[in-house]
């Protein structure tokens, strides 16, 4: 076999042929091992010849193909013992995972190769003994490798600001050195004869007054090394250590973020961004799988104009509760419930549908569910034990529904996916079809599958009944199906459309089902075109779509399905908490505008208190233009419309914004409008508007959720999807660049990856949709509600702690260096060290290192439960109150003050005798005394910034001071023989023999911390931070029990409890509007109309027209 691939690597990508191939093709080695089939000598020679010919082909191709020895395993032979020569034509290596176009030319026969036949790198083979394949791409050319994005290395904003601080410190360092160096150049003078300044010995140039410029330069370098302690090098190491422990020990091991059902703890995949979590102002959230569970349950359906299903969705319940109604729920005891199926209606179950007005419709509906899909059954062929493998839970839910209705899809036989001749069979066990109680197994032959993608938004299957009847079943989004329906039957269409809207407003995901009988001749002629399109190399997708269009028309509507995607546990409460924390939330969803708004209400994102702005592309004016079909015209018109809308919204928003007590704002914008609003000329307006909004819902941005019906290896290469990613990416980057605010993206699917990577912090939900989002994320959590813990507890604490660590490091190094700087002035600017080398080196490493790390780990202003009880505390992080330049300046001021105290208090008294024997101190006595004071003070100062002091604080602070004394006792007590100036010898004992030392040691730290203490007292008394008030309010609480208590509540809250809790937080007033209350003009009348309540149509009733175009008002229900 000759392929276009060039070399073999350890992890290549294959195209595979199916098991069936081994009927025709075999591997020589396999035959060799099977003696019975050994070929005779003539065949062997022929084989050898054929193999030689192939090698010749390899060699003569340009460029020659490099290969190793030809093993028998590399030779494919067919049944007649002919070696097979095949040619693979394929596309160039690219990064698109879901597309592949190629042809396999085998015996003058061209076989199309599609993504179905491509095995990506890293895939593992299950349930298959062996495959025969050809390597297509290897190494870096594999799709997976080419798709591996450069994961952006993220640094936290605080760290970037820290860099600026370090730069400032460098600038300070140079200013100090410059002053010192100039001083030195001025100071050096021959008159100081005792310094021998004009001597010409080696190294004497540093202080030679004959060349003052050289003196300046050399002293500059000396001073840089002398003052280098101002740069806190150990800060970075300490911060890394702190963050590492924070993420691995605290975040990863937090029991509050452990999800029992899925057995997933939280996972911090990077330790860079802990404190960034404490400053997030914008959250971008995906809906499906993030806010919702991505557990699809078949909930309702509409067949032939009749709604079935008695359930009440959470959203409906929420709406009802908000409007003060009570919904009676009567769950019948015999309702079938299983995963994916939450439906109860006695009219349909157990064959009862036969008694419905139109049982044929029902039958087609169920068949469509059982046949039109790409689900694979697994396991035992009994209704109880079978498991369905589906790429999306929606599809599985539909097939499970069919099973429960008596159309049990139990076997799937794919005969040949490579050669298109033999069809696929689907076996369905149908009950009650002919008559009640009769069960029969019916095999359906699947002739063609017209696959789902998000341009088509539908999926069709052509199948042949056992009696030869040809039927096309189709399911898809309402918009695309309605376009392709046959004329007539308008009643059902209208009624079904109403049902669809009703489902939509209850937050259900809808699909329309339709079918069509095919005439064999029509089918045959179409099938030829289909096969042609399927094997074309260029534009295969587009051609297939075009061919599909030829047959998917004049469909007959059967009905529609409604699937519920339940909100995750605790989502409303969590969003409420996050909102109170001052975080603005954007939800990006593929839903219709009404569904999106309802979801918004259900999860507390939007409420009646908020002023809503709606920018929709589904207005009459836009539709009119769209119908004319001129793309350029549409674009121009849309842009104008969007601009107009944005402008008016912005003006209104600003009028609210200028008045402080105005309502909070919410923006609802649909995907198309968003695309235009992101245009550079409108971007600023969008930014201004959205930054003022507390909640933004972007609907219809993703490919419709139905796109996920497809196997994830199949098709999603289409502009809509790309554009979505692009769009989402842009949205995130917009806020990131424009406003200097910190953004967080949370999502669970592959389509959220770009969003996750673009935001400052990416959070992946380790849920049902694979690991892509998690792999791209910085933090992975199991449930959306853990976001509250992650941000409000871990994020806030990390932010506080890192701020403290950074400012404290800044303070302690500045203080230390400044004492040295003051000494320079009194040492003739010579660059003489005030402190011994060892003191200076160990200051950061031992004497002040550990306590600050302890603070970075253990400091807590208020307990975790209080952090969540008062989410508003989080706003201190958003406003960055703890690491502003003002804060740094205050610290700098105090370190200036303290350094002056240290230096002058200690040195001013060096003149007189220090003990009763009248002896005086020398330089090293004074400096050791000063250093002792610095170490003691700096360590005590640390205790002053602590909000909570554990045993470890005492141990580390006490230990650091003790370490200094032990060190100095040893260091000055032992006289080392060589290489040491003995300045320090016995210094501490000399000092400790004087009372003066003790008096100084008491005076200096107190005097130094005096100002800090006054500042802290005054600040707390007159300008308290929020957390300080909270501390005071709860100063008598027993914190240990309160958190454990909260743990119980947090984990055991049922959805209903969480919801009622969330609702109880809403203002208890009956809405100002009729029916159930949507405070936006468009929805009021729309929903009111559905409930049969009259509301006047208004000119600006945008959304109503969007979904009720040309629909007369029928009071339904």
């Amino acid at each position, binding site marked *: 076999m000759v392929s276009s691939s060039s070399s073999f690597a350890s992890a290549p990508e294959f195209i595979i042929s199916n098991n069936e191939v081994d009927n025709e093709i075999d591997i020589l080695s396999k035959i060799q091992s099977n003696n019975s089939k050994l070929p005779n000598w003539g065949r062997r020679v022929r084989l050898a010849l054929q193999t030689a010919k192939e090698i010749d082909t390899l060699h003569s191709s340009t460029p020659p193909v490099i290969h190793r020895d030809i093993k028998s395993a590399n030779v494919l032979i067919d049944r007649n013992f002919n070696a097979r020569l095949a040619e693979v034509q394929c596309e160039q290596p690219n990064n698109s995972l879901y597309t592949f176009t190629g042809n396999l030319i085998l015996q003058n026969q061209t076989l199309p190769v599609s993504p179905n036949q491509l095995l990506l790198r890293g895939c593992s083979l299950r349930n298959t003994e062996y495959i025969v394949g050809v390597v297509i791409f290897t190494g870096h050319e594999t799709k997976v490798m080419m798709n591996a994005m450069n994961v952006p290395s993220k640094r936290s904003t605080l760290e970037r600001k820290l860099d600026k601080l370090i730069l400032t410190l460098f600038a300070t360092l140079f200013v100090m050195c410059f002053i010192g160096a100039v001083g030195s150049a001025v100071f050096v*003078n021959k*008159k*100081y*004869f*005792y*310094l021998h*300044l004009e001597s010409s*010995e*080696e190294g*004497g140039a540093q202080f030679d007054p004959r060349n003052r410029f050289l003196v300046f330069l050399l002293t500059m370098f*000396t001073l840089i090394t002398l003052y280098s302690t101002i740069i806190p090098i150990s800060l970075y190491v300490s911060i890394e250590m702190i963050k590492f422990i924070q993420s691995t020990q605290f975040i990863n091991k937090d029991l509050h973020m452990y999800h029992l059902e899925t*057995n997933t*703890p939280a996972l911090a995949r990077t330790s860079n961004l802990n404190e960034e979590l404490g400053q997030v102002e914008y959250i971008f959230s995906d809906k499906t799988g993030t806010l919702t569970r991505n557990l699809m349950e078949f909930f309702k359906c509409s067949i032939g104009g009749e709604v079935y299903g008695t359930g009440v969705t959470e959203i409906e319940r929420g709406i009802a509760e908000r409007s003060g109604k009570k919904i009676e729920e009567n769950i019948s005891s015999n309702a079938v419930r299983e995963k994916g199926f939450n439906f109860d209606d006695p009219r349909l179950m157990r064959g009862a549908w036969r008694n419905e007005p139109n049982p044929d419709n029902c039958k087609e509906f169920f068949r469509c569910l059982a046949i039109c899909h790409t689900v694979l059954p697994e396991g035992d062929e009994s209704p109880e034990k079978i498991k369905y493998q589906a790429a999306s839970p929606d599809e599985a839910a539909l097939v499970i529904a069919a099973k429960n209705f008596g159309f049990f899809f139990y076997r799937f036989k794919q005969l040949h996916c490579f050669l298109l001749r033999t069809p696929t069979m689907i076996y369905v066990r149908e009950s009650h079809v002919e008559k009640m109680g009769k069960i029969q197994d019916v095999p359906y032959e699947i002739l063609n599958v017209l696959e789902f993608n998000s341009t088509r938004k539908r999926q069709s299957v052509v199948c042949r009944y056992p009696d030869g009847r040809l039927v096309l079943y189709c399911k898809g989004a309402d918009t695309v199906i309605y376009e392709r329906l046959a004329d007539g039957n308008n009643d059902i269409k209208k009624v079904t459309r109403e049902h669809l809207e009703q489902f939509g407003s209850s937050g259900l995901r809808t699909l329309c089902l339709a079918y069509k009988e095919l005439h064999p001749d029509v089918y045959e002629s179409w099938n030829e075109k289909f096969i042609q399109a399927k094997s074309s190399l260029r534009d295969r997708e587009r051609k297939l779509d075009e061919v599909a269009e030829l047959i998917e028309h004049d469909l007959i509507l059967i009905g529609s399905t409604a699937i519920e995607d339940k909100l995750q546990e605790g989502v409303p409460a969590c969003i409420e908490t996050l909102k109170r924390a001052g975080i603005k939330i954007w939800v990006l969803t593929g839903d219709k505008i009404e569904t999106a708004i309802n979801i918004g209400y259900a999860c507390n994102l939007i409420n009646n208190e908020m002023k809503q702005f709606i920018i929709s592309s589904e207005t009459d004016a836009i539709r009119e233009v769209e119908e004319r079909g001129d793309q350029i015209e549409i674009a121009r018109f849309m842009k104008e419309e969007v601009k107009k809308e944005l402008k008016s919204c912005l003006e209104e928003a600003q009028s609210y914004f200028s008045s402080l*007590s105005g309502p909070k704002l919410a923006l609802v914008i649909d995907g198309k409008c968003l695309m235009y609003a992101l245009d550079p000329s409108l971007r600023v307006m969008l930014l201004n508007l959205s930054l003022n909004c507390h909640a933004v819902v972007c609907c219809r941005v993703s490919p419709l959720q139905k796109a996920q019906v497809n196997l994830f290896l199949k098709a999603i290469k289409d502009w809509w999807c790309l554009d979505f990613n692009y769009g989402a990416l842009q949205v995130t980057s917009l806020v990131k660049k424009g406003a200097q605010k910190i953004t967080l993206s949370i999502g669970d699917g592959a389509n959220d990856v770009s969003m996750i990577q673009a935001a400052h912090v990416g959070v992946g939900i380790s849920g049902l949709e694979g690991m892509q989002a998690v792999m791209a994320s910085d933090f992975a959590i199991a449930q959306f509600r853990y976001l509250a813990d992650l941000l409000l507890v871990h994020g806030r604490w990390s932010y506080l702690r890192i701020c403290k660590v950074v400012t404290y490091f800044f303070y302690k190094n500045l203080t230390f260096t400044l004492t040295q700087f003051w000494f320079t002035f009194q*040492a*003739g600017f*010579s660059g*003489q*060290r005030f402190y011994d080398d060892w003191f200076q080196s160990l200051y950061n490493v031992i004497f002040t290192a550990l306590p600050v790390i302890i603070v970075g780990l253990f400091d807590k202003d208020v307990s*975790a439960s209080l952090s969540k009880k008062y989410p*508003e505390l989080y*706003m201190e992080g958003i406003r960055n109150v703890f690491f502003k330049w003002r804060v740094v300046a205050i610290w700098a001021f105090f370190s200036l003050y303290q350094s002056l105290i240290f230096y002058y*208090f200690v040195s001013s*008294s*060096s003149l*007189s*005798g220090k*003990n009763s*024997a*009248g002896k*005086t101190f*020398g*330089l090293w*006595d004074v400096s050791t005394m000063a250093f002792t004071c610095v170490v003691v003070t700096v360590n005590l100062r640390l205790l002053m910034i602590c909000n909570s*002091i*554990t045993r*470890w604080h005492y141990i580390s602070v006490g230990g650091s001071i003790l370490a200094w004394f032990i060190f100095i006792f040893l260091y000055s007590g032992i006289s080392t023989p060589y290489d*040491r*100036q*003995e300045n320090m*010898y*016995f210094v501490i*004992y*000399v000092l400790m023999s004087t*009372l*003066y030392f003790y*008096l100084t040691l008491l*005076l200096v730290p107190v005097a130094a911390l*005096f100002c800090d203490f006054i500042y802290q*007292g005054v600040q707390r008394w*007159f300008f*308290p931070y*929020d957390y300080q008030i909270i501390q*005071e309010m709860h100063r008598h609480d027993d*914190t*240990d029990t309160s*958190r*454990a208590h909260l*743990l119980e509540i947090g984990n*055991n809250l049922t959805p209903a409890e969480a919801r009622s809790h969330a609702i109880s937080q809403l203002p208890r007033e009956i809405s100002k509007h009729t029916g159930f209350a949507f405070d936006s003009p468009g929805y009021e009348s729309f929903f009111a109309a559905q409930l049969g309540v009259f509301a006047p149509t208004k000119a600006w009733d945008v959304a109503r027209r969007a979904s009720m175009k040309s629909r007369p008002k029928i009071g339904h229900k």
Partner: protein
Amino acid sequence: MSSSGAAGAGSTDSTAARRNTKRPKYSKFTQQELPACKPILTPRAVISAFLLVSVVFVPVGVASLLASRKVCLRDIMYDSKCIPKNVTNKVAYIQSSADKACSITLNVTKHMKSPVYIYYQLDNFYQNHRRYVKSRSDEQLRKRGEENETSTCKPEDMVNGRAIVPCGLIAWSLFNDTYSFSVNKRNLTVNKKGISWKSDRNHKFGKDVFPKNFQNSSIIGGAHLNESIPLREQEDLIVWMRTAALPTFRKLYGKIEEDLKEGELINVTLNNNYNTYSFNGKKKLVLSTTTWLGGKNDFLGIAYLTVGGLCFFLALAFTIVYFVKPRQLGDPSYLSWNRNPGGH
């Protein structure tokens, strides 16, 4: 295990499931529930801290100030007095070999109890200059055999190819003014033993190291040393070699071991040899007694009193504010989101 509170949910798991579980283990550390005390800086705490400091500091301040006041100190600046009036070039005068003896008188204003310490004080003399500080060889000073260890002593390391002992700028510039005291024509003995720190004497200067080639170079920096006396006994050198921290410093010269009575006139005969004139340094002779705190040092007492006094006044001020304009602890109306609804 104290997991009772947190592990409740998982308690029904079978043991096998528990083995596979990724549930993090409960510990106070990972759950960040370490017991901690939470000090709150309440007004009461602030006031009591201030009071405590003032209560401790004022007495200490008073005690040290009293001690300092008890010290009798007489000093006299003689650098200009001891230059004959007709000399214009002071530097040339001091470098000449003329007899520079000089006589000054000090009157004792207060009874000075024995021992009275004699100090000389130099001004504008940078003993802490980097070049100066490192220009010594501790090896050489300590051990006889190491006398060639002069590499750190430049430029005063060798003379005519032979090592100087003691080498370096510090030793070379040894102070060489001498004082003798008499009261009523009666000479007072100046005891020059025990004026250096004992640790310096016993560990840094060898008892078998003798000065060699000292002050033999062309320029003479200061005092000569008696080459027959080991360094350990040359206490003037030992005192001098403990370099001072600041450019103004005092060093002990000796002690007079008898009381000086009030009103006595002390006649000081001094040899004004040391050159401070080239760098405009001043020279002072200081006589001082000591107390338990050492010499005269008002600074410490004043600092203590200032801090203690300030604390007292602040305690008062805070108390007044506390009563006049109290802030209730934990008043929710102080929360930013309550002060400013909307959170903007």
